[in-house]
C-alpha cells in the first residue's frame, strides 16, 4: 500500500513538473469536441398509485407502461442527465454522440454516429446508432419535446424512445427551390424493449421461434417543406418494414417473473405514417404552430396463446394454441403550440387511438373497449434559451387497470437546463 501511494505521489509530482514548463507543444485541447450537458427534473402529482402504474395497459395496444426516462412516479425526480459530444472527425465525416444517465437505467449510449459531408449530388449518409428519421416526433430528443411525454401512438407502436437502433441511413435531397428529401434506413432490428419490431428468437411454452435474418428493419421516408411568406409547411410520409417476434409478458422490474400469456411471430410487419407541421410566424418572437401525425401498424402473422387446458403452475404440460393473426392498430395526435412572448409558450395536445381491428383464423374479433384518448395542456417559461420551466396537465383516458378503464389525471412540473456547447436544433 505504501509503495502504491509512493508511486502515485511520484507520478503526480512528475505531472506537476511537466505542467510547470511553459507550453506543451503537443497539446491537443483545440481539437476537443463540443460538449454539452442537459439535465431534466420533474415533480409529479397523479391520482394513480405508483404500485398500480406498473400494471396499467392499453388493451390491444400496450401491455405495460413503456420503457422511458421520463419518470411518472409521484414525487420529485431526476429524469436524466444527457451528455453530448459533437465534432468534425476529418474532412469527410462529422461525429455526434449522446450518452444519457437515468436513475434506474444507468448510463446508456443513446446515439453515436458519423455523418458524411463529402457525398456529391445531394446524397448524405449516417452510420452508427441513431434515431430513425421516420415521422415527425421520432428523431427529436426528449429535451426538445413540446410536452413532457411522447405521443400515445408512439408509446404504443414505436416505444416512448421511438425507433433508435444500429444501422445505416441514406438520404437524397432534390435540387429544387423547396425542400424535397427521400431517405431510407436499414437497422439491425433486435431489441429487448421492442414494441413492434424484433428479429431475435425466443421460446414460448413448447414453441421455438426462430430468429429472423438481420439486419431486419427497413424504413423509408419522403419529406417536403415549402412556405408562403410567414406560413411554413412541412409534410412527411414514412414506412417501416420488419419482423415482429414479440413476447408479451407482464414482467416488471423487481418482481418475480410472471409467465407470458401470449406471443406473436410475423415476418413482415408494416408501420406507416403521415405527418404535417404548419407554423405561422407572427413576429420576431411569436408564432403559432400545428403538428399532427397519424401512425398505423399492420401485423400479419401467428399468435401463440397459452392453451386454456394448461395449468399455470405446471409449466411442463403447457402447450400453445396456434392462431393466424391479422391485426391493425392505428392512432394519431394533434397539437397546437402558441409562443406568445419571447419567454412563454403554451400548448394543447390531443391523442386518439382508433379501435384496433383483429382477425383470428380469419374471423374478426369483436372488441368491447372504450374510446381511448388523452388530452394534455402545457405552459412553459424560459429564463433564457438554456433554462425552461414547464407545467403540464394530462387527462389520460386510455389506460386499463385490472380489466377496467382507469382515467388518470396528472400534474407535472418539469425543469430543464443546458450548459456547454450544444448544437442548434432543426425546425
Amino acid at each position, binding site marked *: 500500500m505504501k509503495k502504491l501511494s509512493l508511486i502515485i505521489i511520484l507520478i503526480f509530482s512528475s505531472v506537476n513538473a511537466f505542467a510547470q514548463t511553459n507550453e506543451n507543444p503537443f497539446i491537443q485541447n483545440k481539437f476537443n469536441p463540443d460538449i454539452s450537458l442537459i439535465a431534466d427534473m420533474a415533480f409529479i402529482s397523479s391520482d394513480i398509485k405508483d404500485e398500480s402504474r406498473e400494471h396499467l395497459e392499453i388493451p390491444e395496444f400496450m401491455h405495460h407502461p413503456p420503457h422511458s426516462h421520463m419518470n411518472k412516479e409521484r414525487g420529485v425526480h431526476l429524469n436524466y442527465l444527457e451528455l453530448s459530444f459533437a465534432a468534425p472527425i476529418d474532412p469527410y465525416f462529422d461525429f455526434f454522440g449522446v450518452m444519457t444517465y437515468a436513475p434506474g437505467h444507468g448510463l446508456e449510449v443513446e446515439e453515436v454516429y458519423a455523418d458524411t459531408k463529402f457525398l456529391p449530388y445531394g446524397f448524405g449518409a449516417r452510420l452508427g446508432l441513431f434515431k430513425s428519421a421516420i415521422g415527425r416526433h421520432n428523431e427529436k430528443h426528449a429535451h426538445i419535446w413540446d410536452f413532457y411525454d411522447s405521443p400515445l401512438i408512439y408509446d404504443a407502436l414505436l416505444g416512448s424512445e421511438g425507433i433508435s437502433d444500429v444501422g445505416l441511413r441514406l438520404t437524397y435531397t432534390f435540387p429544387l427551390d423547396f425542400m*424535397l428529401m427521400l431517405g431510407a434506413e436499414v437497422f439491425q432490428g433486435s431489441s429487448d424493449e421492442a414494441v413492434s419490431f424484433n428479429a431475435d428468437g425466443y421460446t414460448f411454452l413448447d414453441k421455438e421461434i426462430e430468429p429472423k435474418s438481420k439486419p431486419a428493419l427497413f424504413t423509408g421516408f419522403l419529406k417536403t417543406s415549402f412556405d408562403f411568406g410567414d406560413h411554413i409547411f412541412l409534410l412527411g410520409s414514412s414506412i417501416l418494414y420488419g419482423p415482429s417476434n414479440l413476447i408479451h409478458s407482464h414482467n416488471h422490474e423487481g418482481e418475480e417473473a410472471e409467465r407470458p400469456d401470449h406471443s406473436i411471430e410475423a415476418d413482415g410487419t408494416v408501420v406507416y405514417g403521415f405527418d404535417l407541421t404548419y407554423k405561422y410566424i407572427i413576429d420576431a418572437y411569436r408564432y403559432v404552430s400545428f403538428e399532427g401525425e397519424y401512425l398505423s401498424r399492420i401485423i400479419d402473422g401467428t399468435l401463440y396463446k397459452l392453451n386454456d387446458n394448461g395449468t399455470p403452475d405446471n409449466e411442463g404440460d403447457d402447450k400453445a394454441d396456434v392462431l393466424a393473426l391479422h391485426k391493425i392498430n392505428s392512432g394519431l395526435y394533434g397539437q397546437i403550440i402558441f409562443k406568445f412572448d419571447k419567454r412563454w409558450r403554451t400548448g394543447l395536445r390531443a391523442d386518439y387511438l382508433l379501435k384496433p381491428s383483429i382477425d383470428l383464423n380469419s374471423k374478426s374479433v369483436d372488441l368491447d373497449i372504450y374510446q381511448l384518448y388523452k388530452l394534455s395542456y402545457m405552459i412553459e417559461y424560459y429564463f433564457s434559451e438554456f433554462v425552461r420551466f414547464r407545467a403540464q396537465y394530462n387527462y389520460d383516458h386510455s389506460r386499463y387497470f385490472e380489466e377496467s378503464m382507469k382515467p388518470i389525471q396528472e400534474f407535472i412540473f418539469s425543469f430543464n437546463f443546458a450548459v456547454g456547447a450544444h448544437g*442548434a436544433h432543426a425546425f
Partner: protein
Amino acid sequence: MKRFIFLILFLVAIPGSLYADEKIKVVATYPYIESIVKEIGKDAVEVSTLAKGTEDPHFVVPKPSLIGRLRQADLLIINGASLEIGFIPPLLKQANNPKINAGSEYLIDLSKKVELIQKPENVSRSEGDIHPEGNPHYYLSYKNFPNIASGIKDALIKVKPEKREFFEKNFKDLIDRFEVKRRVWDEKLKSINGCKLIQYHRMFDYVARDANCAMFAEIEPKPGIPPTAKHIEEIIEKSKSEKIHRVIGDDYHETKSVKKVSEAIKTPFVLLPHDVKSFDNIKDIFDMYNYIVEELTK
C-alpha cells in the same frame, strides 16, 4: 419496382442538365448581404436569403424549405461571429451540399474581413448571449462597408473567375457611389461628435464608433436578457446628470422600455433598423446607412 428505380435514377441524374443555368446560386443569411451581392453580381447571380429583415437575427427560424436552396448553392455567405449559430448548422446538415459545409471554401464568413470590437476576455453565459468572437453587428457601420463588399466580390470571383472583370467593375462602381455618400455621412456625423448614447441591445456600438460617440448604457442588463424595472430605474438615475444625445431602440425588440427611459430623462428616442428591409423604406444597404445617420443627426 423497376419503373420506380428508373424514376429515382432519372431524378438523381438530372442536376447537371435540366436544373442548372449559368447564374451563380448564392445563399445569403441576411438581407444586407443579399443587397450587396445583387449590386456586385447583378444578373450573373441568383440570391436567396434565409432571414427576413424584421426577424431577430440571433433567432432566425430554420425553415426547412430553405434546405432545397442550400442544396443547390454555389456559395453561402454568412455574417459570422456566431450570429447564425442557432439556425445554419441543422439546415446545412440536411442540405448535403459539400461545397458549402463548415470549413469548405465556398462558405464565406464576412466577419473575417473586418475587425471586431468587444471581444470578451472571459466567455461565460452568466454574461448573457455574448459572442466569443466579439460584437457581431459590425455591418451596421458604413465604415466597414468597403471590406464587406470586397469580401463578397472576392467570393464571386472565386466561383466564376471568368467573370472577374465584370465583378471588379461592378464593385468599383459600387465603391465610387459609396464614397460620394460617405463624405455626406462623415460630415453629418461630425455634428454629434463625442456624444453619449443609450441603446437597447449591444447593436449600434460600431455606429457609435463611426461618430466618435460613447455608448453610455444598454437597456438590456446583459445581451439577450430582457430589462427589469430595477435596471431601468438605475439607467434613468445615472443618466440624469449626463447629457444623453439619443435613446436608441430597434425594429424587433420591445420599445416600451426605450420610450420609458426616453421620457424619464427627457431625451428623444429613435428606432433604427438592424438590417435591410427592417422597415419598408429601407430597400438596400445604402438606404440603411442613410437612415441610421439621418435619424441620429436629425
